[in-house]
């Protein structure tokens, strides 16, 4: 079984994000870049599927700048077999990214695509679903459990108010939620091996996907800051204030 996993380079979630004064983006001088945490979970799931089935291939794909090689190498060190970097200079919108990925899927013909449920920079939560529709494939978003038996796939998903179970034949697109698994760390031998694994670069233009932007980011602004209130000395004072001052209980 061949599994394609998407990878995005994002600021480490522990980084404090600051909007540039001109609103053109965020300050990147002190940012540590990592694999989008949900993509790590997606990769872990792909590796577990391969281990369980006792074979197959896990291929990483990223659509971004040359610097994204770093995150692809980390993914290779975790255990992916090879990686593809679709080089794109400008940031593409979700629709264009999905179109590019659809081209890659048509070339690679994986049995399964696993993406993170959202990238923690844009917080869009769109690409996996868009890709599934473009391919005419089933989708299982927000997966917390994946079971594959032959070409049948059953997924437990985090839905509103509970857990939903869906089933479908492969190929399909799954998007990973937090509780799907706990990603492994890259081991030292893994890091050594990763250096020799294939990391292919392709210019995005050569794929012939429609890249025309339809979503334009005009400007970023920092959110209004919430004022800290006061400390109270006792539970009695707290409950009293909630009743008489805030009037919420």
């Amino acid at each position, binding site marked *: 079984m061949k599994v394609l996993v998407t990878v995005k380079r994002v600021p480490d*979630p522990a980084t404090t*994000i600051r*909007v540039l004064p001109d609103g053109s983006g*965020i300050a990147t001088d002190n940012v540590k870049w990592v694999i989008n945490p949900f993509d790590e979970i997606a990769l872990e799931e792909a590796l577990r599927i391969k281990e369980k089935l006792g074979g197959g291939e896990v291929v990483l794909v990223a659509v971004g700048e040359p610097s994204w090689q770093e995150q692809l190498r980390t993914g290779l060190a975790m255990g992916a077999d090879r990686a593809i970097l679709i080089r794109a200079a400008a940031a593409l*919108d*979700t*629709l264009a990214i999905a179109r590019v990925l659809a081209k890659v899927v048509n070339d690679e013909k994986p049995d399964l695509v696993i993406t993170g449920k*959202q990238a*923690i*920079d844009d*917080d869009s*939560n*769109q690409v996996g*679903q*868009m890709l*599934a*529709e473009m391919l005419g494939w*089933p*989708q299982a*978003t*927000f997966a917390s459990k994946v079971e594959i038996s032959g070409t049948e796939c059953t997924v437990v998903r*985090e*839905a*509103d*108010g*509970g*857990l*939903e*179970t*869906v*089933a*479908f*034949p492969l190929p*399909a697109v799954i998007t990973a939620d*937090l*509780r799907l698994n706990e990603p492994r760390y890259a081991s030292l031998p893994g890091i050594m091996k990763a250096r020799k694994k294939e990391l292919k670069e392709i210019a995005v233009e050569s794929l012939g996907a429609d890249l025309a*932007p*339809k*979503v*334009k*980011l*005009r*400007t*970023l*602004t*920092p*959110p209004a800051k919430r004022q*800290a*209130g*006061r*400390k109270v000395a006792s*539970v*009695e004072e*707290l*409950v009293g204030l*909630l*009743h008489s001052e*805030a009037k*919420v*209980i």
Partner: protein
Amino acid sequence: MGDVLVFAEHQEGHFPKTTLVAVGAGLELARKQGGACVGVVAGARADELAGELAAYGLGKVVVLDHPALTGRLADAYAQALAWTVSRLGAETLLATATAAGKDLMPRVAARMGAPMAADVIAFNDDASVVRPMYAGSALATVELQGKPRVITVRATAFEAAKPVASAAPVEKLTPEFDAAALKMRLVGFNATKSDRPQLTEASIVVSGGRGLKSAENFKEVLEPLVDELGAAMGASRAAVDAGFVPNDLQVGQTGKVVAPALYVAVGISGAIQHLAGMKDSKVIVAVNKDEEAPIFSVADYGLVADLFKAVPEMTTEVKKLKHA
């Protein structure tokens, strides 16, 4: 002509507040675009529900009648909704960014080749929209070029629609799509059982974090306060990951976004990812033994204390207040 089509999601035979928020946002956007706001309902009991929805000030309610729409599966719904947008010539398809909205709307957008903005918190007069990025550390002003376009709105950012005197007409349509191409099956749904208010509907939310230390402590220490206040219960990711409470109680960037009149954070440090889900609450209370905890920077009232002592005291004080 500027029409907004609102996807009216329903759960267990009724419209949750999040759906009425979608209608409220749809009405606002339709006014701005100079068009009508139309609601669309599908699935089990759609006829009855359409009658209910017709009371909320919409121009029209459409019922989608098709056997493939019984369970809310993304492949079927994407086809049906894309068909409806084109049939009605709607300019915008809108839903709330619930788990179902997030699952479905991007797929419809892809089917239509339409631009999409997720989790929108405001509509500007020049047709641009505002949405948070980076766990709410930045607000982006975004233009969606071309029509149709797809928008999900954040449930806490718009008012729920209210019933009006006159009812909208209801129209039944049978969407045309390739049902043979559908491959997804609904196997089951395991609802989180609770007699408490829904997290996204409650006016008071009490959330617990890693500081609670165990599922038993959630039950024995936190739940009495939750119930005394008639509140919904929430949690941090750390508490959910540790298995103290079910997954769908997670508040935050990658969980639910809430903005109740009162939010009480107990044993929660206040990571940016958690704040992203609750910092628009009207009044925030934090109980934490670490006075440096970042949660205090957004709290209106902060109590530096051991929660195992403070929370039972709070329960007692609230009880006293009610019987005073």
